[in-house]
Structures are given as C-alpha cells and as structure tokens.
C-alpha cells in the first residue's frame, strides 16, 4: 500500500505545521505544572493492601463458618446423673457375661461369687 503511504506523506500536516511555538509550549507547561495537586495522591502498596484484605476476609469467613457449624451441631448433652456406687460388698455382686454364638443364639452367663461348689462324694 505504497499509494496510501505516499498520499499520507503528501498530506502530512507537519509539513506546514511542524511544531508548537515556544510561547505555546511555555504556556502549556505552566498550565500542566499548575495542575499538580497540592496533596499528591498517597500511593499504597497494593500487594500489601491486597494481602491484608485477603487475610481479613479469610478470618471473617472462618469465623462465620465456625458460628454456623456450632449452631447446627447437636445440643450438648447434660451429664447424666452419677451412677451410685455399689454399696453391696464385692463378694456378693453378680457378674454377667453376655455373648452371641455364630448361629445367633445369645448366651448370658451370670457368675455368682457366693456360689461355692461343694464336693459330694
């Protein structure tokens, strides 16, 4: 497209209007410098800000999640009344032994400590 390039070069406005005048430049420079704000923008370290924001969000999320889980959990059971200590003497207490056979029969043995096998011959 040399034709377009040639035409553009023929019509280049810089051929007749090459640069700003010194007065224009000075005036523009003055206006630009006057526009600098009195209190330049405070630049914050965006990485640090982002990290802090992420940490705060994470902590808040974790707190909310914990609170939700706690409210959904089963109510805490009150400890049952303490089992009264056995008052009977140890030798009179009967002990049970329960078990099931592979066939499903449930067997309960009661062991009586007072039982004494007497020898009758």
């Amino acid at each position, binding site marked *: 497209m040399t034709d*377009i390039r040639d035409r*553009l070069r023929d019509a280049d406005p*810089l051929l007749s209007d090459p*640069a700003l005048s010194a007065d224009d430049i000075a005036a523009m420079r003055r*206006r630009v*410098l006057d*526009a600098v*704000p009195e209190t330049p923008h405070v*630049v914050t370290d965006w990485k640090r800000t982002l990290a802090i924001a992420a940490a705060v969000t994470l902590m808040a999320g974790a707190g909310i999640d914990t609170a939700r889980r706690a409210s959904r959990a089963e109510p805490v059971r009150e400890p049952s009344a303490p089992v009264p200590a056995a008052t009977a003497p140890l030798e009179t207490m009967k002990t049970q032994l329960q078990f099931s056979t592979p066939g499903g029969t449930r067997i309960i043995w009661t062991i009586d400590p007072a039982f004494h096998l007497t020898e009758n011959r």
Partner: protein
Amino acid sequence: MSPAADTSRPEAAERLGRLFDAHHNRLYRLARRMSGSADAARDAVQDTFLRAARSPHLVPDGMPNEEAWLVRVLVNVCRDEWRKRDVRRRAAFHLVPDHDHGSEAALIARTAIQQALQSLPPRRRAILVMYELEGTSIPSIAALLEIRAVTVRWHLSVGRAEMARLIGRRHD
C-alpha cells in the same frame, strides 16, 4: 512496569516538568497527524499532560515506559474527542468541495486524505500514522500501545483498506 513511588508536590512537579520537556514534541507530532487542526492537537497534548499531572503516581518510571503511557493516554484523549465529534466530522467529510483543478485541487486532495484519516478510529489512526509516517516498526507499536503485533497488523490492513475506500469514494 511499576507505578512511580509517592512523591511530594515539588517532586511531582519537577518530575512532570521533566516528562513534559522530554515528550511534548513527540506527542505533538503524533497528535498533529491524528488531529484535524493544530489547535486540536495542542489541546490533546495538554489534556494528556494534565492527566499525568492529576495522577502522577500512574505514570510509570523509565523513558520507554513513560513514553508508552503518554502515547496511550494521548490516543485515549483523541478517542474521547473523536466520539464527541463523530457525527459532525462525518458530515464535514462529505462537505469538502469537489473542485479538481490547479493548486486548489492539491489542497482539496490533502484535505480529503486528512479527513479520511481522521474518520478512522483513533487507535487505528495512531497505528497508521506511527507505521506509515513515523516509520515505527510493528513490534514497537505493539509495545507502545500494549497490544499484540498481530492486532497492529490487522489495524494496519483494515485502516489502509478504509483509507483506500474513502479516498476512492471522493474521486468517484
């Protein structure tokens, strides 16, 4: 490309002064080729530096980075202006007198070329100007405008076709 560190007002003004001195001529040349008049080009350059003045922290450090930033802002300024004046400019393009003789014909032809160029979207116009008139390479244009080289090539292709169509229509 990291933004410049925070500065006090005198430091910001000093930096901006250096920025202005280093880049105003280059920006004016680009703006003049993209704009319809010297006044419009001057306004565009001034708006570009005013944006830098209001937000000095946005201007990156280093010569190539700050130049690229300023060129992008200039193209954006031209785009804002182009949107505002779009309808008027398109109408004006068709109002160019169609005489075809002597030096007046040459003037009209140049005007037609300039108006055809100004009818392109600003980014495409900037790419065409930088490549065809300033001789900037495609990778350099891509780096300046922060776009891909293939996008620059596409804009060049479409821009040339649009220019040819617009200029051809004027001569039909």
